[in-house]
């Protein structure tokens, strides 16, 4: 089975990839570099992917690895395994911050979160990636991804609220 056409591939995935990269790298220039590097890796190796359903996962996995590879100060991003989610974090807040949200505000709030939550949450929201796929992309256990998304959503909500209050 022939792989997807490169141009079609770029058109189909560059936007969610860029937004994912932007949430990780926090800089448009770095995000653009990460996306380009990801597609160049595809140009070099992507034809090894025979299963077209794996393409999206491959691209996001590669971009995430590129990000990790470029990250210089790893101690800024401690790995935290969240085994238990506090019940209070799963409760919806009484306010409705979503009524005031815009893309820039949400992205800025997302970029504030620790990378532990940022990566799974970005994938969850940006390209409707299932938690099982996210676990594969980030190479972490499914249960960990579930708790990180869940807690990350609570943290994001608080961050958006704070931004809207200002």
């Amino acid at each position, binding site marked *: 089975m022939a792989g997807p056409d*490169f*141009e079609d591939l*770029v*058109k189909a995935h*560059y*936007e969610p990839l*860029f*937004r994912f990269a*932007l949430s990780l790298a926090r800089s*448009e220039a770095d995000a*653009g570099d990460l*996306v*380009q590097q990801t*597609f*160049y890796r595809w*140009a*070099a190796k992507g034809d090894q992917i025979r299963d077209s359903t794996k393409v999206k996962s491959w691209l996001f996995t590669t971009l995430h690895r590129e990000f*990790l*590879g470029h990250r*210089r100060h790893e101690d800024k991003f401690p790995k935290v395994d969240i085994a238990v*989610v506090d*019940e209070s974090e*799963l*409760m*919806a807040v009484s306010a409705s911050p*979503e009524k005031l*949200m*815009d*893309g*820039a*505000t*949400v*992205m800025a709030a*997302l970029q504030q979160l620790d990378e532990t939550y940022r990566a799974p949450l970005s994938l*969850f*929201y*940006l390209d*409707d990636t*299932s*938690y099982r796929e996210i676990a594969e992309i980030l190479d972490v256990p499914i249960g960990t*991804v*579930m*708790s990180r*998304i*869940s807690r990350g*959503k609570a943290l*994001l*909500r608080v961050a958006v609220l704070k931004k809207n209050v200002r």
Partner: protein
Amino acid sequence: MNLNEAKLILSVALPGDDGAADPQLAEALALARRDAELGAWWERECRWDAEVRRSLATVAVPSALPSQILAGQKVVRLPKADAKLSNFEWSTPLFWGLAAALVVFLSLAASWLHAKSDNNLASFARDMMAMAPDDSRHVDVRQADLAKVKGWLAEHHGPADLALPVMMQRSPDLMGCRVLQWHGQAISMLCYMMPGAQHVDLFVIRAAGLKDVPAPGQRVFASIKQNAMAAWQSGGNVYLLAGAVPMEFLHLYVEPSQTTQTSWPAPFAGVIFYR
């Protein structure tokens, strides 16, 4: 399934997923239909998720990004390009873009061909020596723990399965490391500040990436200008230790009792060989 478990499962569900392929989600959804509190929570959660998705989808993506990516990709694939030049408008930006891409490609090809013909130990040593004095960004990370250095190198795709001479394993003088690129290959560099402020760098490359490597067990010593160098092969890697230090210093660190080799590859003019 209690309410808290149901919330955790629901909170990671994608829009429109009815749980047909996920019994746990199906159970959580059924519970949300029966339990008013959970149902209300789930409704707010769905509204929140939808709004976040809508908001993030409006984040602007640079309009030039796809064309930049595609322009770069053309450079990669130009040799088998199927574009019909006769159909081009010669004055269009596309033509000039492709022309620029061709120039870049030819440069890369020339560089690659040069690299192919120059992948020997001598050129490796010469190039590494040229890179070593780069003080502005000499190491990427400062780290004295060898295990952590190996971990960092592995993560950055440099050779990390290092089999170091005993003196370099127990040296407390490891300063940091870096990954360099040489002819498309990743090179691990470890920086040491030996006693007496003697600065040396150890470069590690996969043996498969070099021609005329020292045979296992051999040690090659050479000197050029103010720099002393030692090279050997071990465990599929070639090691090059170099610095502006006395040759005896390198002997000390790379087990001079095993030194057997003297000939350095031919292209390395001006080198003094040591036995």
